[in-house]
């Protein structure tokens, strides 16, 4: 039996599809929740990241200053960091802006084809020049590919972590 008790999930630059897939585990969530305590997540109410978390699932790429700050803090307070889904693993769709840079994206979104052209500066975090996968910023322990990873895959990962094993998804899951 493993000593991994607390679970957190975070949502960086992604579409939340991985979280949806997490919920797709359906009744297996109940089974897992008897062993894990979900201490931090977009799905729960807590606002600050706890001092010590056993397992954190990270969805999304690192795309803004805010993401960067968050992931560094999370790494510091997490024992097993899991990159969940292609955005966390490769940047995926979030990183497609790397092909052209930030400026054209900002122009397209906030200035062209809008009624009131205006780039927001207050209350929103500044974007990084380059969107990066999580492991380019902090060390990652487990990689779970998929866009999104299937509920079965996520269940397998969590079960194996609970069983005290390092999950290997070789030959199980792939990008996309």
């Amino acid at each position, binding site marked *: 039996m493993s000593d991994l008790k607390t679970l957190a999930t975070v949502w960086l630059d992604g579409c939340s599809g991985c979280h949806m897939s997490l919920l797709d585990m359906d009744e297996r969530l109940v089974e897992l929740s008897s062993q894990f305590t979900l201490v931090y997540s977009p799905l729960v109410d807590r606002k600050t990241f706890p001092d010590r978390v056993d397992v954190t699932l990270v969805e999304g790429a690192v795309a803004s200053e805010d993401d960067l700050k968050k992931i560094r803090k999370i790494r510091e307070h997490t024992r097993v960091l899991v990159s969940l889904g292609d955005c966390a693993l490769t940047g995926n769709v979030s990183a497609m802006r790397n092909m052209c840079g930030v400026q054209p994206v900002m122009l397209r979104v906030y200035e062209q084809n809008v009624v009131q052209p205006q780039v927001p500066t207050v209350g929103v975090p500044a974007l990084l020049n380059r969107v990066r996968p999580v492991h380019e910023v902090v060390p990652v322990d487990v990689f779970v590919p998929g866009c999104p990873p299937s509920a079965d895959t996520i269940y397998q990962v969590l079960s194996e972590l609970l069983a005290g094993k390092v999950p290997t998804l070789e030959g199980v*899951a792939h990008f*996309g």
Partner: protein
Amino acid sequence: MSAEPNVRTLTINGEEISARSDQSILEAAREHNVEIPTLCHLEGLSEVGACRLCLVEVKGARRLLPACVTQVAEGMEVTTHSPKIDRYRTMILEMYFAERNHVCSVCVANGNCELQDLSLKLGMTHVEIPYQYPQLPVDASHPRFTVDHNRCVLCTRCVRVCSEIEGANTWGVMGRGAQSLVITDLKQPWGDSETCTSCGKCVQVCPTGALFEKTSVGNKTRKHPEFLPYLRIMREGEQP
């Protein structure tokens, strides 16, 4: 050259097998259900030995040898999988993913892509080396087909099928190094090509979503490169 190929005995991963002397290690291995990953190889086309995924250990050889172009020999001892080879293959695959913009989730070939399949087979769960994010064009000028260079792995299957089977030589490779690009004619829009017969063979042999039919929507497009061996046999005619 003797017309009758001789039989050679060799071992692959310790198993003794026989093969015809004109067979490559790859052919012999696949005949005996030993899996060796490949990307540029396609039955019915000439070999280029470029993808380096089929590299195997041959006892006594100084270097790893590409199974696709190395002929079997008597007493050869071949190892197709070892921790070292597996590590090399994964890294080669990572280089493929990182050099262009492979975003499986939005690709027309998602689920039917040889590159994606390889990542599954070789157990590549993430790409350690940084993506390059080159700016590459998409050419949709052809009435039926599209080429998206972001997804091209430069296997040159399209170039070879166009030259060796169709005979049109529409496709070629321009530039060199990381700037290499498959092109039609004088790098003009595919739709303006004077030589393209629109036969679509290039699309069928493309291992990724780089070449696709415009009618392929979503990710249900399977490609059918199996016609190649058939064409070869029919073209060569009746063997005496």
